[in-house]
């Protein structure tokens, strides 16, 4: 296999009879093997093992229903706009000169870096993240089963407030985009939300009052 035939070596004395050269039964397979390796290299280099990755997102049945049940007491709203602009405000939106006499909402600028958005979400979602960490430790010590861990972690992400026990509700993230926001920023934000263990998030339409605030800020 794959060797060069170099006659049949020594041993031909002067007195040997002249006989017809025995043709070798071996075939030179070098070209075939070369080709095989060439093909191998080609297929190794061109084959793509990686299938596309996906992230699954659920959408509310009707965004109008959402407003009714949005009695959120621990929400953060992100407003996305052109040039990777991202602004946020905490809690409900307070109009200027509202009846309750609350100060009007102002929006704060942040960015998509680890220092900006990531730290902000980690900080805002600290109770949930800590609770899930405790569960994870319990799971690692084999005190709870993995299904229990998953179930409890999920419950932690959707926890509602209990003032008597000093429990704050799990963080809810609302994502609103204006007409210039790009898709990439929305995906980045959802990705960050998932990384920070936030269970409740929704993409909703922007209110006119929010748009005004955003326009004033981006001008």
């Amino acid at each position, binding site marked *: *296999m*794959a*060797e*060069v035939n170099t006659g049949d070596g020594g041993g031909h004395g002067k007195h040997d009879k002249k006989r017809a050269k025995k043709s070798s039964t071996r075939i030179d*397979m070098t070209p075939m*093997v070369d080709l*095989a*390796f060439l*093909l*191998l290299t080609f*297929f*190794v280099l*061109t*084959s793509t093992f*990686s*299938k*596309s*990755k*996906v*992230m*699954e*997102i*659920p*959408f*509310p*049945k009707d965004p109008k229903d959402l407003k009714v049940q949005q009695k959120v007491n621990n929400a953060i709203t992100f407003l*996305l706009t052109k040039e990777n602009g991202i602004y946020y405000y905490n809690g409900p939106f307070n109009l200027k000169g509202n009846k309750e006499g609350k100060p009007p909402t102002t929006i704060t600028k942040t960015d998509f870096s*680890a220092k900006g958005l*990531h730290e902000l979400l980690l900080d805002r979602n600290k109770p949930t993240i800590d609770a899930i*960490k405790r569960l994870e430790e319990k799971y690692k010590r084999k005190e709870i089963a993995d299904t229990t861990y998953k179930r409890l972690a999920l419950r932690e992400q959707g926890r509602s407030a209990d003032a008597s026990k000093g429990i704050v509700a799990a963080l809810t993230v609302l994502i609103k*985009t204006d*007409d*210039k*926001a*790009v*898709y*990439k*920023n*929305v*995906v*980045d934000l*959802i*990705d960050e939300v*998932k*990384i*920070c263990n936030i269970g409740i998030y929704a*993409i909703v339409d922007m209110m006119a009052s929010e748009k005004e605030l955003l326009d004033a800020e981006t001008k």
Partner: protein
Amino acid sequence: MPKIKLPRANPSLDMTPMVDLAFLLVTFFMLTASVRMSEPVIVDTPGSHSEKLLPENVIMLTVDKKGKPFFNISNVEVRIKTLEQMGAQYQMTFTEKEKKAFGKMSSFGVPMKDLKKYIALSEKEKEAYNSPGVPLDSLDNQLSYWIRYGHVQERTLAKQAQAKAKSLGHQFKDTPLRFAIKADGQANFLNVKDVIKVLTDNDIYVFNLITNLEKGDEIN
């Protein structure tokens, strides 16, 4: 003392096992390699940390950089059935040849009236073709029909396959149909939202966003 003669080592070594392995690998890569159809648009999907893989059985909606929607069904049989139903809806008949060509196509972004012309184009011409996108406005929401009929046809075929498997006494594993949105990172989110609206209008509330895997620092 006579010298001990060492047997002369044969310089040619036996390469049989290596070549065997090489051929095995060649065969493996040749068989696993799948022919990828060229897409009519190049879409640069954004990155995420999700590690979920794209499901097998999908209806894929592509949104390109300019916000034009494209449509694709992964299953060839379903594609052809859906085309037949769409033809019936828009009073168009497709020849067997056209149906076959359509089954082999990748995603497309042309309205029904241009579809026959588009199918007839060669692979090269399709790449150069400036697709206007599948219409999805409220006056002529073809994308909605494509999704609805695609969904219906897929379920019908799955049921038939199940019935057939049952009659033969085989096991049947249903791979549920999933919906995926593959949008360009730079596309305006409003266009993506329009496509999402078409899906939610068709009572589809859970779907996948196709992203690239982004390697980032581990976060706790």
